[in-house]
């Protein structure tokens, strides 16, 4: 310890040290060459079903393809765990994935129903978020922003705010929409009643045409094929366009309630309130992701065509129930604590017949109530107001009822597209064999249980459960039977005013311009198969 500088470091000592270090380094390097350490990769995981010896195919595997330009749904790969639930919904429930041949053509077959989003446990698949666009137009004082809410939203959005499944929150939802800054809050129930007037009249015309052999009333070119199919569910419509284009002349030419309200808002409402239709922004709150696709269909611009600006959309933005809930939460509003408020007049009245559009079999039941009136001139008997045969979660339901002067009216209801196939294949076979139609009218809904369990509804159970569906159905029928002031579409005062002041008569010229539409044969975009 005396003095470090006195330590003798000889040249020999230094070279010994250097040599030892060199030999150690060389040995370490050589030993490294023998054992190369851990190669990169393989630190992660995959779900259990994918970790099995051999190359046997896994039963539940992969995921659905989604076009990045899909207007309805998007996917965030970072959240995808390849659980296979989307494929389960798309193939086994909706019979879309797997029901077309490979190689594909120039389209990723998707009916935009959003059931995959409802099933996805991690939320990797979700609706395309249009909230910011809507907030932007609300903030623009030059624009008159109107909003409509679908029948099924009022019994589901409460679930997003901690309320029990199926809570009825119609008034609270209206209050929240007004607080968000929408200029007018209208009800899609109004246009559901309007749809019944149009679609019921169309059905009556088709039945009469079948009796006489040629079209009556309506338009000369109106299709006369029976059974008539409902056209409210855009996922179902696209499904038919893809897989059953030969049956499109059965599809009612009526637009869906969303699009009817959209085209009436920018014509009738604009005229009544003396607002330039170009300044109106039309927003729809829907339980559905396919409604985003429907609003974007090129032909959905009737009001624009009438105003001389074909680029004007009938409905500008569609938000799902989930998006509206996020929007309300984002503004710090507690929906459960709001005082109920009524819809705005002119397009705010709705009947019990309109509310049940949300349930599978509901459009059928509503159409029968008013169809009975249109055929007989009398309101239906009490028994027809609770048509239990078409209610409930069974995939395919049928009923036959006697209508005076017409005879037996045979109807069927299918919800879930896999179930729809049963009826469609039967109709196709009957037509090919030249057999007479089994039914007069069939209601198809893309989603199992109808709109109450639509692809844009709150994810109260994942995957969606019948328990939640039943709670919501119960509430829908409660509104119809107990809360609604009227239960018949043809008694809707605001709808009658619309006909008297603007449209003329159901299926008339103006109605055809604004409320009816055409369909597209999409079969060239895929090689359809009848089995997966």
């Amino acid at each position, binding site marked *: 310890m005396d003095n470090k500088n006195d330590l003798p470091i000889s040249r020999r000592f230094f070279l010994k040290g250097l040599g030892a270090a060199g030999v150690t380094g060389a040995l370490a390097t050589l030993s*490294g060459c023998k054992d*190369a350490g851990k190669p990169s*990769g393989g630190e992660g995981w995959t779900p259990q079903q994918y970790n099995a010896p051999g190359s046997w195919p*896994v039963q539940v595997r*992969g995921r659905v393809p989604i076009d990045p330009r899909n207007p309805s749904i998007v996917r965030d790969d970072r959240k995808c765990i390849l659980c296979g639930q989307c494929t389960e919904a798309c193939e086994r429930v909706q019979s879309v994935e797997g029901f077309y041949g490979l190689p594909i053509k120039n389209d990723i077959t998707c009916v935009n129903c959003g059931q995959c989003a409802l099933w996805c446990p991690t939320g990797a698949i979700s609706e395309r978020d249009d909230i910011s666009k809507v907030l932007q137009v609300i903030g623009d004082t030059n624009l008159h922003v109107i909003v409509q809410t679908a029948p099924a939203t009022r019994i589901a959005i409460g679930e997003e705010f901690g309320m029990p499944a199926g809570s009825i929150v119609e008034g609270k939802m209206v209050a929240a929409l007004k607080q968000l800054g929408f200029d007018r809050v209208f009800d899609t129930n109004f246009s559901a009643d309007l749809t019944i007037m149009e679609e019921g009249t169309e059905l009556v015309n088709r039945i009469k045409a079948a009796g006489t052999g040629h079209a009556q009333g309506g338009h000369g070119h109106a299709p006369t094929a029976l059974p008539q199919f409902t056209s409210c569910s855009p996922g179902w419509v696209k499904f038919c366009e893809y897989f059953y284009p030969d049956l499109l002349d059965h599809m009612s030419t009526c637009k869906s309630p969303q699009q009817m309200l959209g085209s009436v808002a920018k014509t009738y409402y604009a005229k009544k309130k003396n607002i330039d239709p170009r300044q109106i922004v039309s927003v729809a709150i829907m339980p559905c992701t396919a409604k985003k696709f429907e609003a974007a269909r090129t032909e959905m611009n009737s009001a624009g065509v009438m105003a001389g600006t074909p680029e004007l959309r009938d409905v500008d933005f569609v938000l799902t129930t989930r998006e509206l809930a996020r929007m309300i939460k984002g503004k710090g509003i507690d929906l459960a604590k709001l005082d109920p408020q009524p819809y705005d007049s002119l397009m705010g009245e709705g009947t019990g017949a309109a509310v049940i559009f949300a349930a599978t079999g509901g459009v059928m039941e509503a159409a029968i109530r008013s169809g009975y009136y249109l055929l007989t001139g009398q309101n239906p008997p009490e028994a027809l107001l609770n048509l239990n045969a078409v209610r409930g979660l069974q995939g395919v339901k049928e009923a036959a009822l006697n209508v005076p002067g017409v005879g037996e009216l045979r109807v069927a209801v299918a919800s879930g597209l896999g179930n729809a196939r049963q009826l469609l294949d039967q109709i196709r076979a009957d037509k090919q064999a030249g057999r007479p139609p089994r039914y007069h009218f069939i209601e198809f809904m893309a989603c199992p249980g109808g709109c109450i369990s639509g692809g844009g509804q709150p994810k109260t159970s994942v995957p969606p459960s019948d328990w939640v569906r039943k709670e919501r159905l119960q509430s829908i029928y409660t509104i119809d039977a107990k809360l609604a002031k009227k239960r018949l579409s043809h008694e809707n005062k605001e709808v009658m005013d619309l006909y008297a002041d603007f449209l003329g008569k159901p299926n008339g010229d103006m109605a055809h311009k604004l409320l009816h539409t055409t369909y597209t044969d999409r079969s060239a975009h895929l090689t359809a198969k009848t089995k997966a």
Partner: protein
Amino acid sequence: MSKGVLVDMTKCFGCGACTVACKLWNEKKYDEVNKPTLGEQAQLVDINWTVVSKHDVTDKSGHPAWRFAKKQCLHCVDPACASSCLVGALRKTEQGPVIYHPDLCVGCRYCMVACPFNIPKYEWDKSFPKVSKCQMCFTRVAAGEQPACIAVCPNQVMTFGDRDALVQEAHKRIADNKELYVNHVFGETEVGGTAWLYLSDQPFAKLGFKTAVPQESLPAYTWQILSKLPAILLGWTAILSGIYFINKRRNSIAEGKQDSTGGPQA
């Protein structure tokens, strides 16, 4: 037996499950904005070991169609990257995968230059970067399992098995469906053969495949010169040493004559 994969691109509908499986299994990060794994812009980069690229083509009936191509390291039978690596950081395993050992890598990136398919990527944005490429899930393969991307495919686009059997299978599929497939198995002979083999109904060049590659193995090509190097080196050593000794002897004799006067010897 060396493993391989047969990819039938006519069966792919572009769901991208394989790219997600790769990210999950190898814990790779996502950057869908700058480095997408799926679609027209998809490309192999350091964080993307496999991608599915989309291509607009015309089908046999003349209609516009979409095709998807799953891309990753082709795991050459005789890999140029491994041949070029100075330190043995890239190695072809007996089971088929060509795997990268980051502990050995000195970062010279010769492999990136050597690869005929431009597969190895470099982690340019890291302080201590590594080379990065598909490892063909070698631990899964060693455990008798399929690579992750193959296991998750909903359409069974890919078949995992012994490479020799898959070559037979590929030709059988072409023979069974001559109207559909292009009569070529990509990877059977390219650069002397790759573990991953492809079938297509479109010309491979249209799906972004590099078709202008030699049909023989690249290391075999360079081996023609490299194999002669030891002989050349030893020969030159012998020749130069000989010259040196001859010169030395000649000099010492010449010096000996000068030193005959009796100068001091070294």
